[in-house]
């Protein structure tokens, strides 16, 4: 199971100059034709001015199973080892850690440790919930349904009611 790896193919983005601060950014039209939806999302999150960066050294435990989430992470460089009971696997760039759990106020199901030097962007959960509560009903509904599908639950979390 250790051989499983989940993440975005950053080699493709790197070749397109999207991961290089000296590269020329693609126009929206170019991105529409050259990137998948997931690569789009990753690229936009990477350049978001709303998120601050964090660096973690190899071996750092981002979350232990049962932890509550105050800050979610989006991995931009490096990889984490995910320990889920007897199973373990790896996640790398593009992995979003703890966002749905934090918004739903449920504990982390897995333990995640930095397998390499890790560069992430941080999404503060309290502010995320405030934004969801004050956004329009349509986007709030989209947030709610996406959190529920991600966590595999059929009851609306209290924080999203």
């Amino acid at each position, binding site marked *: *199971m250790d051989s*499983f790896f*989940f*993440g975005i193919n950053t080699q493709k983005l790197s070749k397109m100059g999207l991961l290089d601060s000296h590269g020329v950014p693609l126009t929206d039209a170019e991105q529409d034709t050259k990137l*998948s*939806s*997931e690569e*789009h*999302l*990753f690229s*936009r*999150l990477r350049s*978001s001015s*709303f*998120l601050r960066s964090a660096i973690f050294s190899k071996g750092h435990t981002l979350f232990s199973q049962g932890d509550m989430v105050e800050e*979610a992470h*989006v991995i931009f460089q490096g990889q984490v080892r995910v320990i*889920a009971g007897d*199973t373990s*696997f790896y*996640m790398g760039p*593009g*992995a*979003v*850690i703890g*966002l*749905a759990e934090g*918004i739903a106020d449920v504990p982390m199901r897995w333990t995640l440790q930095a397998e390499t030097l890790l560069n992430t*962007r941080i*999404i503060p959960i309290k*502010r*995320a919930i405030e*934004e*969801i509560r004050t*956004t*329009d*009903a*349509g*986007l709030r*509904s*989209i*947030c*709610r*349904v*996406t*959190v529920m*599908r*991600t966590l*595999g639950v*059929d009851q609306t979390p209290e924080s999203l009611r």
Partner: protein
Amino acid sequence: MSEAYFPIQSYKAGDVLFSRGDAAHTFYMIESGEVDLFVPPANTFLVRLGPGEAFGEQAILTGGVRGATAIAMTDMVCIQMTAESLQEIVQSQTSLIRPVLEGLFLQLYLQNSIRSAIPELNS
């Protein structure tokens, strides 16, 4: 999100909006009526959704397929959005809600990949 920008579709009770395994191109928001989501072949009931609720979020993801079958339980009216129009809405946001939405979609994408590759984690 004004309904004026999106097609509105009516369904009759009993209509199948989509079936599990179908390619996902459309995101639905319920204006009126109710829909049930089932998972075949045992038709396991997942959830009943009503006015103001949304479903079909797989449409935002490349190659997304329906994980359930959606059947109208009553006459329904839905606002329907394509993946492109949904992405335009997200991109037009100018606050933290934008990276929150993008992060949630990306987390769902990875979670679906993990569930598919390591099914024992679903239990």
